[in-house]
């Protein structure tokens, strides 16, 4: 929670937001309504979202606006979801993606 901005001279983040429950690699966690999957994970201190397909190097997001695909994860069984632009929803099952993503993953 230390990464959530509470007060800001220009922006207003004080409004109470609805808590969204989801799982990260089977672990129950929470974010807020309005979060993307990546922003919610980042606020929890989770930066590694996927592994590179060949060398299995850890990967996080880079652009946060859906350009670079470095944030691909498996969401509700679907691989290659750009988590930096996908809104967090109640009950989502979010997993670190460690391969290129297979059709049978879904």
């Amino acid at each position, binding site marked *: 929670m230390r990464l959530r901005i509470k007060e*800001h*001279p*220009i922006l207003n983040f004080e409004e109470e937001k609805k808590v969204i429950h989801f799982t990260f690699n089977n672990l129950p966690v929470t974010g807020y309504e309005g979060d993307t999957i990546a922003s919610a994970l980042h606020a929890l201190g989770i930066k590694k979202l996927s592994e590179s397909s060949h060398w299995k190097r850890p990967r996080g997001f880079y652009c946060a606006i859906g350009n670079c695909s470095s944030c691909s994860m498996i969401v509700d069984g679907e691989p290659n979801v750009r988590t930096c632009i996908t809104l967090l929803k109640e009950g989502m099952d979010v997993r670190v993606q460690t391969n290129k993503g297979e059709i049978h993953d879904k």
Partner: protein
Amino acid sequence: MLAKEGVATLEQVQSRFPNHEILARPKAIIECYENIPCNPCSTSCPFEAITIGEDINNKPEVNFDKCTGCGVCVYNCPGLAIMVCEVSGDKLRFKISYEFLPYPVEGEIWNAINRKGEVIGDALIEKITLTKRQDRTALVQVLVDQDYLYDFVTIRRKI
């Protein structure tokens, strides 16, 4: 200095200040050393004291006869490069823009900071205003020692 470190030289700073007699009244000090396309200081001045002209890349010129030191340009400058300075007895009174939390409170003593970000002494917070017109840029009036005329530029909370 400015191009490599972002710190204006003493000579540059001094070139922006009028003499002590003029500073007996509050005056706008504009530290805009570069030709950039920008003119809100000039268009926001209620006294037409700041001139940029047709080409918005010109550097602003202050007419110290017209400038009343009201501080409107201070919070309207997108580069936050303007402050108001006044010599008051053996002290200096500055009005600066401030966009960080927590805001200073009247009567507090904060650190006086120079252009390199170093602490140079104390600054007494005299007043802080944050009206709707200021659009979230606070205007802080402080009193500092007279020695800091060309050094003082902002404040920092004491830890």
